[in-house]
């Protein structure tokens, strides 16, 4: 917890110091009011960082939240948490302290903009209307605000204490045994063999003289088994349900939403592409086989494509049956883009986290919020008709080259 908080705290400190630098560089005012500048970081950002650090510890102690699934859960928890104060109608659940700043700023704006209606949104870019300015002296730190922030610090401590109770890696013996231990305990121990038995009692079938043929289908089948095996039964049920739903849901818009869900569901499958060999330490076995780039890498990629085809297949069938060839082409580009993106990030980073984070963000902003520039799966009919799918086709090709180069680099290192 302390190390997590130190890292996050350091980021906040850098941000705070950058604030001073920005003020001086932009020549806003040479007089620096340290308390006014640092107070929001101390009272708003620091408690929020403490809670985030505590959540990270908590996730580490809960087995199913420890890996990639935890990253996805955190992303959605974070996205929900941002809007929770509005949904709940109270700022008491405002972890980030965003509404403390917003309320203060709106209060300052009200007298000078009496004839306007107020709402708060974050935006970047250009506006097609004139902007008005108002003077804001910063947040007035009331006791209520400070106490609320201290309560958040208290929450982080509660989470850490909860984590301490859940942490069980010091002692494997009490309570129920871990699954691996159970498996090991129930493992069938092979019968003992007498070492004096001559080995030649087992004869090995000779192989064909020219045995090193390309067996792409066999590798693909094996890779598909590797990527799909090991999921819980309900994972397959949900995946199948989403694939069917994307075919039978009547309206195109709703189908797009279902497709988005169908293509976030296997994110942890795709994130293992290109990293499995190093994560499971099998790379020495695979990279010492003939033609590892020409044989195994395309099979890994194709297995990822097949996962996209299977999980989002309902949407594709609907497009095909509806004669929407342009939409079908855009959908196919999405099918190719996702595993190529995963493979290239996996090969170069050696971990699934970059893909899990980047893809989930892209998915959240693009397909889910219908931002056409980022809708790589062309889930909305309008996107399919635009030029964006072509952009993603080019990007897919570039990413494929990046993945290939990365694997070559791995083999030469």
């Amino acid at each position: 917890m302390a190390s997590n908080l130190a890292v996050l705290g350091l980021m906040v400190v850098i941000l705070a110091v950058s604030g001073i630098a920005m003020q001086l560089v932009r020549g806003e005012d040479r007089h620096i009011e340290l308390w006014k500048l640092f107070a929001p970081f101390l009272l708003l950002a620091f408690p929020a960082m403490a809670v985030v650090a505590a959540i990270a510890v908590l996730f580490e102690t809960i087995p199913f939240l420890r890996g990639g699934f935890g990253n996805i859960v955190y992303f959605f928890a974070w996205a929900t948490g941002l809007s929770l104060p509005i949904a709940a109608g109270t700022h008491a659940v405002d972890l980030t302290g965003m509404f403390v700043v917003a309320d203060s700023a709106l209060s300052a704006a009200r007298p000078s903009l009496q004839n306007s209606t107020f709402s708060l949104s974050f935006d970047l870019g250009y506006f097609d209307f004139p902007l008005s300015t108002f003077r804001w002296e910063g947040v007035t730190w009331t006791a209520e605000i400070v106490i609320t922030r201290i309560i958040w610090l208290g929450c982080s401590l509660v989470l850490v204490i909860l984590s301490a109770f859940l942490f069980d890696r010091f002692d494997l013996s009490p309570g129920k045994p871990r699954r691996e231990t159970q498996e090991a305990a129930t493992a069938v121990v092979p019968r003992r063999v007498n070492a004096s038995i001559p080995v030649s009692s087992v004869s090995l079938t000779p192989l064909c003289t020219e045995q090193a043929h390309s067996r792409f289908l066999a590798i693909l089948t094996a890779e598909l088994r590797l990527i799909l095996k090991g999921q819980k039964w309900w994972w397959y049920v949900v995946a199948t349900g989403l694939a069917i739903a994307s075919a039978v849901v009547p309206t195109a818009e709703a189908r797009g939403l279902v497709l988005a869900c169908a293509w976030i569901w296997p994110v942890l499958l795709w994130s293992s592409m290109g990293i499995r060999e190093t994560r499971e330490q099998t790379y020495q076995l695979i990279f010492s086989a003939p033609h590892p780039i020409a044989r195994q890498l395309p099979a890994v990629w194709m297995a990822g494509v097949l996962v996209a085809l299977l999980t989002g297949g309902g949407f594709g069938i609907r497009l095909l049956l509806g004669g929407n060839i342009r939409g079908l082409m855009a959908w196919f580009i999405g099918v190719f883009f996702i595993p190529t993106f995963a493979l290239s990030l996996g090969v170069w980073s050696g971990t699934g986290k970059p893909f899990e984070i980047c893809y989930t963000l892209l998915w959240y902003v693009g397909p889910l919020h219908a931002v056409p520039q980022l809708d790589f799966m062309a889930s909305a009919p309008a996107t399919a008709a635009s030029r964006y799918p072509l952009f993603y086709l080019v990007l897919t090709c570039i990413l494929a080259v990046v993945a290939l180069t990365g694997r070559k680099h791995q083999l030469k290192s």
Partner: protein
Amino acid sequence: MRLVVENLSKEYRGGGQVVQALSKVQIALRPGVLGLLGPNGAGKSTLMRILATITQPSSGRVLWNDVEIAHHPDPLRTVLGYLPQDFGVYPNLNALEFLEYLAAVKGIQTATVRKRIGELLELVNLTEVAKRPLGGYSGGMRQRIGIAQALLNDPQLLIVDEPTAGLDPEERVRFRNLLSELSGERIVILSTHIVSDVEAVASSIAILAHGHLIAHDVPEALLASVAGKVWQVVVPSSELYALRQKHLVSSTAHRSDGVHARVVADAAPENAARPLDPVLEDAYLSAVAQPGHHCLGYCARGLPRAHSPSELFVDLGLCALSGLSGDSRQTYAAGGTHAGDFQFRMGRWTVVARSECVHFACGLLFREEHHPARPRHARGTDSRGHSDLEIHLRSWENGK
């Protein structure tokens, strides 16, 4: 069928340091079993990885049937069986699926592969657990899966790195028998630090120490090099340490009349010493302890600050490697003058220094507890409470 290694060197860079893992290794191999011996960190695994085309050498080259493998690895990979020292498995696959996967990756024909996998599982005694996920396998069972995969493609070049690690004695003997059976018309490279494994099967032996190839010969020649130099000395257990300081002790056994120590020395260590027939372990230890090849040792330089004579650990490079146990995880270096014992921890290591001898005043015992990484620098506290002793470690290369 010929494997030639020419002037092979490998350097690892990192943290501002250059580690010479291999230095101008030259070796030529024909069919047969080569036992590659050497202490931990000698460069065996690096050499194996280069031969298996996993790692690129810094300089030099490897030729497989006159084809350089750095530029054309696939002819070698096609006939290669490789069991790495540290390898993993896919925990969700069972043994059959895992071997089928690797067979596909290696490009083995479907018609024969199923049958061969069944036979290999029988060979490594895993038929009964063939359909259990590999995640539930013990370390020894995983090692046997590794052996099976290495034999999948009926390799002409079989490279096995510490293959008996994790195997019980019965399986270990069985594997050695298997290697003997396989060693007909193929090149087998067996890398290990267990001399008895090599003794049982190797037709030739190479000894690596600190990245240098210090010997490559048939076992008989290595044994001949220590003929007349192996002695049995019986000493009280209290004198064993002093004996180790003076001579190379290859093994000891406690008996009712004292400790029976096996000593390798040019002349009889004492009048009562009885000559013994040399075994390969004697030859191996003698080779790695030769002047100029004190590679097992780590040289320590102490910089005393507030206590102890200034000679502490001065110039250990001049000292002989005075004691070396059969377990290569224990290494004694000696030198300097110092009075008083001390012991301290350095990361994962425990360092014990002793002082009862006169000329070789300090013996440093490095116990590798978990991890082979050697510390380069540490601070310690001695038994008298001094805490400002600073120890610098540097590799002992060629006795300099």
